[in-house]
């Protein structure tokens, strides 16, 4: 019985069985031997189709799928099918889809022709997420197709590992995180503002090389950027998933935070969700997490807001990732409060 788990009938089965039944009745009424022959032929086709999957030993299918996805960025889902048996296998229909409350990406289906015995086939399918979110898992199935399309066996497996779909790439906001060091002095440190071009020194990352200047001068030149701010970055999210404007603002916020964290800045995020607030410090491996997960973020409570400002500290920046339906009065209050704490407020709606 375990072997027959997922046994399904195709759409064509009912008409075939109905036709065979009609033929049998007509054969009895008309006493025609040849109608019996036709009816038995149809039933033979049905039986052969059922047997073709019921007794086929199947093959080994290995799935390689990604964990982290970004909206609009295609990734490969790879199926490897091995036929260890001694007979040619049945055609396969492989399917992979993310399991989430709402559709994050279209399901991936792969059709594989029968594989000769002892051979291996690898098929890659492109999965392009269409919406950010968090999938609680993934579901994939290997449907073995019976002869003539009448039956199939499709055991389904569920992967419990969560999959995050980060917001689509967006241009980050050019934040000035300059800490005020004199121009050109001291070791080059991470920053965003360009301070100038200087000669390359051992230890400078290759990505900072200014190739045009190097080609002109014949010597390696690097782009020197300013020092990072000694303050941190705080992010406040208010909005609902599915709101196109909020999604765009989130994408900008995610890109800005990612860049800032990569450059060494401390980033904190507050997420007010129904029933509980969520506070976290973002690390290079978790920058996408809150932006991918947020479904509904309400305006923070006073306690939560204060908690955020404490961590960001004076001299830091407060990024507001808000939906358009946030009351302007509330935004003005936030600005005032943040300013009184010595924070610069950046409304990311201006950049989305």
């Amino acid at each position, binding site marked *: 019985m375990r072997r027959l788990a997922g046994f399904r009938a195709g759409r064509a089965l009912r008409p075939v069985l109905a036709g065979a039944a009609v*033929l049998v009745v007509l054969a009895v009424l008309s006493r025609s031997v*040849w109608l019996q022959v036709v009816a*038995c032929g149809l039933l033979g086709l049905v039986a*052969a189709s059922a047997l073709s999957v019921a007794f086929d030993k199947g093959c080994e299918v290995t799935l390689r799928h990604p964990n982290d996805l970004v909206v609009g960025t295609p990734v490969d889902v790879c199926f490897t099918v091995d036929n260890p048996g001694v007979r040619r296998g049945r055609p396969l229909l492989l399917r992979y889809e993310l399991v989430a409350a709402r559709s994050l990406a279209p399901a991936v289906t792969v059709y594989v022709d*029968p594989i000769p015995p002892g051979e291996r086939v690898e*098929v*890659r399918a492109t999965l392009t997420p269409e919406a950010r979110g968090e999938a609680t898992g993934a579901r994939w199935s290997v449907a073995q197709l019976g002869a003539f399309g009448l039956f199939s*066996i499709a055991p389904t497996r569920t992967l419990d590992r969560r999959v995050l779909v980060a917001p689509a790439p967006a241009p980050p906001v050019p934040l000035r995180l300059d800490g005020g060091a004199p121009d050109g002095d001291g070791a080059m440190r991470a920053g965003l503002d360009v301070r100038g071009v200087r000669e390359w020194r051992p230890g400078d990352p290759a990505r900072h090389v200014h190739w045009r200047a190097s080609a002109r001068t014949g010597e390696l030149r690097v782009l020197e950027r300013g020092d990072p701010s000694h303050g941190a970055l705080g992010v406040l999210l208010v909005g609902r998933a599915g709101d196109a404007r909020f999604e765009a603002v989130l994408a900008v916020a995610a890109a800005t935070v990612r860049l800032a964290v990569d450059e060494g800045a401390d980033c904190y995020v507050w997420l007010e969700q129904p029933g509980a607030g969520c506070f976290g410090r973002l690390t290079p491996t978790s920058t996408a997490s809150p932006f991918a997960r947020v479904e509904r973020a309400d305006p923070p409570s006073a306690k939560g807001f204060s908690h955020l400002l404490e961590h960001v500290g004076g001299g830091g920046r407060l990024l507001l990732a808000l939906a358009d339906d946030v009351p302007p009065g509330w935004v003005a209050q936030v600005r005032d409060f943040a300013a009184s704490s010595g924070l610069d407020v950046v409304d990311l709606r201006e950049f989305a």
Partner: protein
Amino acid sequence: MTRDALVAQNTRAARIAFVVAGACAESALQPLLPFAEWLGLLVLFSVVGVAAVGQPFAPPKPVAGSAGRRTTWPVRQLVAVVVIGLAGAEALGRLRPGDIAAEGRTLALLMMFVQFAHALASRTRREMALGCAAAVPTLAIAAVFGGDVTLVLPITLALAGVAVTAALLHRDALLESATAVSAGGAGSAVRACVAPLAVALGIGALLFLALPDTPQLRAHTALSGASRLAAGGDRGASGVGAVGASSLDLNARGKLSDTPVLAVDATAPQYWQGAVFADYDGRSWHVSGRRTLELWTPAAGMLRPAEAPADGRARTDIATVLSAGVDVVLAPGVPTAYAGVGTVISDGYGNARFVGAGPGRDASYTVTSVAPSTSDDALRAATGADPADPRWTMVPADVAPRVRALAAQLAAPTGNRFDTVAAIENYLKANETYDINSPLPHKGDDPVDDFLFVSHRGFCEQFATAAVVMLRSVGVPARLVTGFAFGDTSAQPGKRIFRESDAHAWVQVYYPGVGWVSSDATASAAAGAASSGGSSVRGQVADALTAAWKKVPHGRVGAFVVVCVALVVGFVGTVLVGQRLIRRRRVAQVGAAADDGPVLAAYLRLERALAAQERARAPGETFAEFARRLGGLVVGAGEVHQAMRCLERECYATGRRAPAPAEVDAAVAVFDRLRAAVKDDVPVVVAPAGRPLTVGGGSDRDRVRR
């Protein structure tokens, strides 16, 4: 091959399969339609179908922006609708209510036009699937109205074509909708259908043979073409009983076996009569039974009947009874003398039956009989008075007027009785079909009217009764005779054996001055059918298949057993041959080339030996991994590893790194020892091959296996 090319190729294959399936189904309709008409429609369907092969399938849903409704119809679909409408009108015009043959022709014509319309107008996969499914009702129509044993081939091919088309359409849909595909050409999909089709054929045959052999689902007698004589009285459906029965019910059907009944000399006449029926009441024949004269008693010896033919030849024959229960004196003509066991009485009309027990099994009797034998010219010129007894020209009052009218129409141009008889026989031959499976008329219908104007199908009883009724209706004295005809001269040299299945009915016509002359309208119709069938390939195939089916012992049960045995033998043979071929292919893959080194040659010999036991190196398994599995009781692990390293160096190293002769000898010895152990059935592979796992960075793997 790109996805679009794959889909296009698959679509072409599906359309071709559709044309093949439709053509095979239409070939089954050939007996129902005039040949030229059938051929023209078949060619039309094929040409249109082939012309559409290169067209892709349209999407099943309306194009976006068309407000969900198709406002214009393509020209081809309009033409198809018009074609079906015209075909329907033509079919209705040809239909004759109550005429089954006309109904069959009408439906056949309609289905051929429907197939043509589908070939012309199928744009989507769904429409093509419907067109393909139309092959099944086409086969059903052929089965009901024109079924004979040659239908087996069109049915098999058409159903196979339908199945392959369905498989290709299904694949087409998957290829188009899938995100990615790994597929070859359409040939792989067709090849994948071969084995399931063979299985389907076997299962279908078994299902058919397993059906109960009831009157509603009769197969063996229908296929074996056993003739059936109606059984009368309380004698049941026995052929011998029917021959000697006092009545013959035209609405009864019986089952006649191949039990031998009578043996006579091989030179004896082909027709041996047993009962003469005088009275017809519109549903059945009855023996007159009014006059009984003793023909023979053990005490009195031979006696003479009251009537004797005026011009005939008497002949004496010796007959040996082979079956118990013969209660009539079977003779080539009217019995006039008898010598043997039992008491015989005669009614003077040609009936001679035993009183009490007749001759038992293997008992012989001698009978003298008289049957007129005169030339056609003499019969044409026969003149004189007919018998005074009106029973020979009596026709029931409820015989349909159109039967009388037909007889009058046929007799009008003739000038003599012989030509009248010939005209009626020729009409029956040309317009009626000999069919041992003729349908029963509806309750209350006139059997003769049903035979002549409705079913047009019947066997000897219907032919003979129709001939007698028509002859009597134009005043020609005629009567129905039952007996045995033709027999088998090959079973015993010098003997003609009559079996139950040789029971037959024919006509005797009275010619003044000559007597009762036999005439067989059924023979000409059956001979006509046989000759027309025999001259065509289809008829020869039908005869051959029918003869083969007749040889199957115990009918359906025997065929079931034969098919089961054949399937088992075929399956076992296929498995054995397949294993042998696989083993041979694996061994060929490890064959050594002429320029291989000694270590490699020894290793390949070992591989061949392991391949014969399906324990060779697995695909993707390195020499080192394979070496870890070799050894066991035969050689140590270290020796195997050294031998494998020597093999690698022989294959890939040059110069100083090539193995030394001593190393080569040692490696060859190791491989040969392993090979010898394999041949001696000593285990040399200590563990099964492990499947290597590769882990991709940043992703997960999972596996499923059924």
